């Protein structure tokens, strides 16, 4: 039996486990993309607070989580917190850790887009009698989200790719299953090449969806 045939035979044999792992990867990536997005919007909203203390705290949060490597955060929570009597499942640690990290990045993208907005629109909304929250939800956020689609899409792609590091805290997702496959037949190149192809396919799907979305909400003459 050739090496390829042996690899494919092992792959098919372990396919149910690999598919379960892929399901877990997709579950984690989708959830952290969603929670990270919500966190990003909330944090961005708070960066616009009229209270200086809130703005400073939030900027501190963004700097801290962008500055800290995600793996350190995950290890801190998974291996460090039990010493304080707090024991969380790998999935919970991954969701909380990623959400805090992704939320900080998303907030930074939204803030950059906000800096490009025409401030006279915000003043006009204020002059019309809209309150702070209405201006945010009706004027600021719709424009900022449109402008941030490329950056937010990149973040979703990063979420999918980075979800593989969750296997280091015992979360048996797709990459962990591929590791198992590689260690059973020692066909490391083939196994990791297979993993790369799967990630590439998933990333391509995300890019296609993002492009379709961008086309759908495009505003003539303004948002590219």
């Amino acid at each position: 039996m050739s090496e390829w045939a042996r690899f494919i035979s092992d792959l098919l044999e372990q396919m149910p486990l690999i598919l379960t792992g892929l399901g877990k990867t997709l579950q984690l990536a989708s959830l952290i993309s969603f929670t990270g997005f919500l966190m990003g919007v909330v944090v961005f909203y708070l960066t616009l607070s009229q209270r200086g203390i809130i703005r400073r705290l939030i900027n501190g949060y963004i700097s801290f989580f962008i500055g800290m490597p995600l793996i350190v955060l995950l290890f801190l929570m998974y291996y460090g917190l039990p010493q304080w009597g707090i024991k969380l499942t790998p999935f919970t640690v991954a969701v909380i850790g990623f959400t805090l990290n992704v939320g900080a990045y998303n907030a930074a993208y939204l803030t950059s887009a906000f800096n490009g907005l025409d401030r006279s629109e915000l003043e006009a909304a204020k002059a019309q009698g809209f309150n702070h929250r209405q201006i945010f939800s009706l004027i600021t956020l719709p424009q900022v989200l449109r402008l941030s689609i490329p950056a937010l899409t990149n973040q979703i792609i990063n979420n999918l790719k980075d979800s593989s590091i969750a296997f280091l805290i015992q979360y048996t997702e797709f990459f962990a299953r591929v590791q198992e496959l590689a260690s059973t037949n020692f066909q490391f190149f083939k196994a990791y090449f297979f993993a790369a192809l799967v990630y590439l396919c998933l990333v391509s799907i995300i890019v296609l969806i993002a492009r379709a979305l961008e086309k759908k909400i495009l505003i003539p003459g303004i948002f590219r």
Partner: protein
Amino acid sequence: MALIEINNLVKVFDKQTVLAGVNLSLVEGDVKVVMGPSGCGKSTLLRCLNRLIEPTSGTIIFRGEDITKPEVDVRALRQSIGFVFQQFALYRHLTVLENVTLALRKIRGMSRSEAKEKALHELSRLDMAIHCDKYPSQISGGQKQRVALARALAMDPAVVVFDEPTSALDPIMSREVAMLIKNLHRDNVTIMCVTHDLLLGRYLSERVAFLDHGIIKAEDTFENLCNNHSDPQIRSFFEREASTS
């Protein structure tokens, strides 16, 4: 009785006095033109009217109530003062129609159809109904100014204030906007307009208030300000503006 009466209005930004005791009044149905050189405090004065900028001291009596008091409902006040900005300030992610209906729906609580009807009425009045599905980037500067005006008028304000309404427009569009404001005045809309466009000022009103270094230095007819005023600086401002217009 005056609709708006500004008494000794002062605004100081970081030790810099922008308004140094402005006194001005505007009667209902009237048009008040305030002119002055760049940086004289014209825009600050307008923004104090609806508390986009908080005055340092002085009073602004609007419909008999001092609106500089802290207990004033600022959002309600802003709804009764229509504001038309120099750079139009249309919401660029919304169509022309949505620009006008947004406040009607979200602030006045009108249904979508009621708001649309009201918005189309205002847009028709300014010949913009035909463009209602376009986005701001798809219409000209003059048309944008019309939409901004329709957006202000849709809220049935007690007064419409214009902040340099023609400064971002070419001469033809400026004339068009001037006629539009004049027509509003004919429809008995109370107007306050700050501008350094002498043609616009002259077209809107016989009299003009001259604001310089944060105070109203003169309020008279153009003729008198240009030829007969005792202050040579005021004469030179109006002569220079007249020669560049």
